[in-house]
Every structure is written in structure tokens, then in C-alpha cells.
């Protein structure tokens, strides 16, 4: 696991998302209403919709294309649809507010 500094917690608005490219990965970062940051791959397992554009409700996001509901904690697609997107561990530094993303080394070395 590699730790990558990817920005500051203030750069994402509450219940909204920003996108970041890390190597070949396109990752959607979400800020929940309680301030927590979540990171998942920006690609719905259904038709590759941009999850970063979905509506965020508690720790779920609804894909803007066909309304699939995805849990931002583990990337799991909710019933009645099935599937999973890759989720990433992300942490905000308690003092500085810097965001640290945990990725596999090979994921970004591909670029």
C-alpha cells in the first residue's frame, strides 16, 4: 500500500464529489454530510456512469445514469441490483486537513 497526498479536505463541498486521477485510476472522492471523506472508483459497474455526478444520501451515492445505489463504505451495489466498485481507504489528517489516499503501488505505476 502506498500513501498518496491528494489534496485538502476543504476542496470538496459537503455531499458533493471531486475527481482525481491517480495513474490509470479515476477516483471519485465524496464528502459526506458528517464531514467524512470516501473514495471509490469513478465508474458504475452497470454502464460505467460517472459516480462523482450522483446524488449523495448518507453514505450512499446514486449513479446518475440508471440510479444504481452504491455504498460508499465498501463499494457494494445495493438491492435489487448487484455488483461492486473498488473502494479505497482515504484519511484526512486531523491537524492539517490533508487528504491521504491508500492505493496499491502497481495501480499507479501503470501510467
Amino acid at each position, binding site marked *: 500500500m502506498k500513501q498518496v497526498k491528494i489534496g485538502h479536505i476543504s476542496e470538496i463541498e459537503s455531499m*458533493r464529489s471531486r475527481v482525481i486521477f491517480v495513474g490509470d485510476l479515476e477516483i471519485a472522492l465524496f464528502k459526506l454530510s458528517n464531514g467524512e471523506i470516501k473514495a471509490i472508483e469513478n465508474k458504475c459497474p452497470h454502464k460505467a456512469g460517472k459516480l462523482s*455526478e450522483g446524488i*449523495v444520501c448518507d453514505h450512499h451515492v446514486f449513479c446518475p*445514469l440508471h440510479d444504481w445505489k452504491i455504498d460508499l463504505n465498501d463499494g457494494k451495489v445495493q438491492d435489487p441490483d*448487484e455488483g461492486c466498485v473498488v473502494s479505497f481507504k482515504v484519511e484526512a489528517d486531523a491537524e492539517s486537513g490533508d487528504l491521504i489516499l491508500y492505493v496499491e503501488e502497481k495501480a499507479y505505476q501503470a501510467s
Partner: protein
Amino acid sequence: MKKKLVLIGNGMAGVNCIEQILKLAPNRYDITIFGSEPHPNYNRIMLSSVLAGDADINDIVINSWDWYRENNIIIHAGHTVSNIDTKRKIVSTESGIQVPYDDVIIATGSLPFMLPLPGADKKGVIAFRDIKDCETMFETAKKYKKAVVIGGGLLGLEAARGLLNLNMEVSVVHSNKILMNRQMDETGGIMLQKELQQQGMKFLLGKNTEKILGKERVTGLRFSDGSEESADLVVMAIGIKPNMAMAKKSGIEVNRGILVNDFMETNIPNVYSVGECVEHRGISYGLVAPLYEQAAVLAKKLAGLETEGYHGSVVSTKLKVSGVDVFSAGQFLDNVDTRAVRVQDEFGGVYKKVVIRGGKVVGAVLFGDISDGARLFAMIRSGEDVTGKEKEILLGSGGSAPSNADLIASMSDDEIVCGCNGVSKGAVVTAINEKGCTSVNDIKACTKASASCGGCKPLIADVLTYVLGADGVKTVKEGICGCTTLSRDEVVEGIREMKLTTSKEVMNVMGWNNPEGCSKCRPALNYYLGMVWPEDHEDERESRFVNERNHANIQKDGTYSVVPRIYGGVTTPQDLKKIADVAVKYEVPLVKITGGQRIDLLGVKKEDLPSMWTDLDMPSGYAYGKTLRTVKTCVGSTFCRFGTQDSMAMGIEMEKRFERLSTPAKFKMAVSGCPRNCAEATIKDLGVVAIDGGWEIHVGGNGGTKVRVTDLLVKVKTEEEVLEWTGAYMQYYRETGKYNERTAEWLERVGLDTIKAALEKKEDRLALVERIELALSLTQDPWKEIVETDKLRTTFENLPIPTMN
């Protein structure tokens, strides 16, 4: 200690059996599955949809990798089993994996039947059986033009349709003179052929292929009559044969397939077999429903439950070719001892035939309209006596024909209603009684019935009606979404009375199930709050659907389309130049004139939107929102020799007056300069038609999925009156419409008379106009706002790519 179960074959029949064992006896076995393909279990029936472009490969996966993990199943995908040592009870693969078993299921399926023609080993000669074949077809279609499908049966025609969708020229070669002759009689076959020819398929019927031509790669086919056909790709789709080589080698008794008894047992103890590889009572099945029936029997047997065994199946088929509906079941050919009822309408493209022997329905063919399919199939399976009412089966009667409820009642509990997912009538009934399902969608969520091809939806609806009664289906009070049971009116009243101004307050105070709502209620609440409290409610961007949040229309690839405002569809050379310059600068892939007389720049990257808007320096055309879209106009009296009024000026004025306003759903308008109505005003949400000396205002039209012609609201004399009535009408819709409800549905729900009564008095209209003008005064051009506000503009940019070290 758990027993060890090994499944050989990771396909639909075998895995279905495992799923049922897990349900019946979750702790009985440690399970290992081997599959030759490197994929999880997928829905092979839907491969033709993948080829036709209606689904992608991920859509047809039935059991995801997670499913194997969650059920602690060891899966060896991409490993082909080479031998079963039935004495030592060990399964081994080509790659050297060895797994011991207590019970083993062989579900190796079938292989495509490849004609042993000279040249069949050339490049470009394939079957249509698995994901790899589909991929080969996709690749071939990119480079080559001409495909020939050998086989005019179900599989061949589905392959041919898919290849047409990939823009290839397709000829179908069939040895019989009749297409789908295993399922169709001559009449149906000819109607099918005509329909498919219209779709662009070519047919070479009554031809036998003798040789495949070409050097390394196929170049064509030669037939036994000496004629030839050129081809860059040959797809053999003549049929399948049980895949039983491994079983045979391991000493298991085979004939045309692996021989099993009614309990799916082979001749060797603890070795079982299900699926297409099996021969049961002389028959091998190639359709999913019988295979699931076999799987169900075996699952019960292995779970240690009583079962009556498998006694063979009556099968039905449906062709999955877009625009052609074909259904066939049982013995559909006429015989000396059968009589048939036929209905044939070549103009409507409908053919129905029911074959009856000894007072019972034994077979049916339906073409064009297959809505009777489920009912007829149930009659064939139940074997009920129809003597004396044969004609009523197809032609209907004064009510003595068996009702759907009777048919459902006559079905046994283990009868399969959803063939794709193997869901029985009993399972649906249980879901209704024990899990409280009250709609087809509930059933789908609980049991997966109707989740694949959807063909059984009418049947499931019948089961619902049968169990719950006509009034029981969906009688539960439906709220505006799953988060609440409150209706639109109750929510809006709450917002007014308790003076709620944020979604969060609404959800807290009114007891929402989900603390932050869902994608359905959040945008709706945001709309209602803005409508009731235009000044006090702050628009919640996070509750807006992507298009309204980004002020552009998201496309399927994640790019956006940009439509600048062109009032009334009247533009200038200067604006056109500006739009052209922007399109060139940002390398816009597609420029299109829309149905609403605007210019659409498609394929724009999100990051480019703000700078494009800056360069355009035109207002947003709002082609993405629940708001006034466009006012379409004809030329009118300015140039047209028939025009009675200045429709362009009227349209421009209306668009300027009412743009940017949120409405429950999109709102389209048009102004025609005379009753010839060139602006198509009578299928708009509000259409104005000029007449000599005045204007007609028409409302509630729709040109979309369900076309609805407008109703006349009023005739007025002056332009001011047109604007007054339009404003009052729009505001009344805003205040009473449900979110996402177009005016056509709204008008039918509340009634034209109610609307007329609400707008009749001048003072009422003026009050409505006053409220709409307040809301309008608070809007501003969103493109300009985003461009000029850093905080909004940055949301369009990605975070900077991090530095790696």
C-alpha cells in the same frame, strides 16, 4: 464434518443447482466449482442481447465473484476437468489440480455442433456459444464486411441479428425451406422470413453447404448445388451436442448424452449430472427451464429432501430478435389426429395457431403478438379439457374462457414461472405472503423473477392478482418515494404550514425512513421548497440531478452537451459565427440542430464547460432542466404569406419572460402564426396558435412516448392576455403538479375543468402572475453565475494529479 461436493461446469444449470442446495441445506457441503471459461456464471441466453448491443457482458453475470466468496465456494475458473477417478473419488484438471469428493455433479453443458466440412478449420469460422465468440464477432465486424450464418434456427437468427447490428452484411444459410422449422410451421416461417428480410437479412434456404472456401482465412462457401456465397466470417449455429467426452472417458455411461435416471443419478454412485450434457428418457434439452427443473430435483436429492423426481418437460421457445415476437410450444405441427384454430392477419403481421388433440391443447405457435404465450403454455402443461370451447382459446368469448386466475390456480407450486431464473409459482406466492411483496417490482427484488428477459412479467402480475385479489396489488399507500408514505400534497402542505425551508428539516420533521433521503425525493423536495418559499429556500445544488447541477446534459460516456439560448429559434449571423468558433476551438465532436430549433454542441468535457460558456457569452438554453425548454416558432406574418400574427415576436417575448423558472417537469412551448400550425403548437405543454384577430391558447400536449394533443384553454385578443394566461397557467401547474409530472399527465389527473375554473377570474390570474413574477425575479443566468463565482467554477475541475515518489 461437512461432505465435499464438486461441481464440474460453472454454467447456468450447475450453479443453479448449487444455489438451491445452499438454500435447502446451507451447512451440508463444502463446495468446489470448476469452469472452463474464465468468467463467473453468466446468463448464456442473454448472449444474443450482448451481441445485439442491448446489454454488455457485465449485465449478464448471474453470480458475481462476490457470490462465490460469500458462500465460501472455491471456484477454479479457467480450469477444465480432464478426469473423474470414480474409485478413489477424485476430480483432476488438465492443469493438475486434484480435488476429492463425496458427491460430484457433472454439468458440462454442450458444445456447438460444428459441421465437419472441408475448410471448417479456417480462420473466421466460429460458433456462437460463449463470450469469446461474441468478442470474436465484435472484432471481426471492425475489419470485415460480410458474414454468413449457417443455421436458420433460433440461435442462427439471433446471431444474424446481432451481426446486422454490428453493421455487417448478413446472409443466413438454412438447409430447410422454412426458417426455425423446429419451432414454426410454414405460415409462421414465411411471415418471419418477410419480417427479417425487411430488417436487412438475406436468406439462402434449402441449401446445403459443401465446402468452406479460402486460403488461411475464409472467403466464401460452396453449396451442394454448385452455387457460392462470399464471406469474411462464417458463424455455425446449427445446434448443440452434449459435452460428455470427459464423462465418457471416466467410465460413466453415455448415449447421445450422459445417461441419468429421474433423480439425475448416473450409473456410478455419487456421480450426478444435470443440464445440456444430460440425456433423460431419450431427450437432451437445450433450453433453460427444463435444466432448472432438473437442477431443482437434484438439489432436493442432495439436500436430503423428498422429491418425486424429474419426469421430463414440455418446452416453449421465444425468439429474442428485436421487432420480431415469436413464441412456440409443444406439438405445433398439424397431424391426422389434430385440429387447429388459426388466426392470420398479414397486414397486422400477426399469426396465431393452437393445436388441439383429443380435447386438449398440445401445441401453439404465435407470431407478432405473443401476449397469449404464457396462458397457452400453462394450458399445454396442465392438459385441461377444452372440448366445446376450442375457438374461445384464441378468439375470446363472453367470459366462459378460462380466466387468468383459473389458470394460475391450476398451476402446481413447483411449476416454473420465470424460466430465466428458475423461480417457481410457489416461490412467488411465498414472497407475496411472507415478504409482503405487492408489485411485480417487489417480486423481482425478492426472487429475481422477471429480472432477466422480463417475458414473464404478465404471468407474475397474474400470480399477484390471484393471491392478493385485484384490489390487493399495490394497495399499500405509496409515498413520493420509498423514504416516506406521505403523498405530494401532504408533503407540500407540511412545508407550507410548518414553514420548512430545507430538505433536512422536511425529512426530520416528517419522519423520513432514510436520514438523507434518496435520489427520488431529494430533487423533489428541493423543487417543492423553492416553489413554496422562493425567497427563503436556498437552492440545494447537492439535491439537483447532475444535469441541473452542472447546467449541461450528461451523455452516456460522461461528456456533456451545450445548448445556448436562441430565443424563439431566431438567431443572427454573429451568434452563429460565435457558436461555430467555439465548436472549432473546443473540437466539439458533434453539432446538431435540436427538435426545439436550437443548436446542440455534443461531446464536451466537463472541465471545458465554464470556459466554453465564457467564450460563447450567451445565456444557457436550459436544454437539460425541469424548466421552460424552448419556445418553437414559425415565421409568422413577418414573411409568411399565410401568417396572421407575428409569431416570432410573440415566441421571443414568451421565452424571455418565462425562462430559467423551475417547473415540476420540463415545459415546452410553441407559437404558430396561423391555424396551419407549422410550429406544432398542439403537442406542447402550452401552444399558442394565432387566428385572425386573436390567439388560441392550447394546453397539456405532449410529443414524447405518449403523444397527447392539447386541449383548448382559451381564446384571447391581445399579446398581453397571452402572457397573462401563460403565466397564470404555468404558476398553477407549478403549485399543484407532482415533481416529474408533465402537464399532459397533470391535466388528466386534475381535470381541464378544474384548471379552467382556477384561471377563470381575472383577479385569480393576476394573483398567480404576481407569484410567478416573484419567482422569476430571483433567477439569474446559471452559466454566467458559475463562470463568475470561483467556488462554483472549481467544482468543474478535477483535483490536481498528485506527485508520486
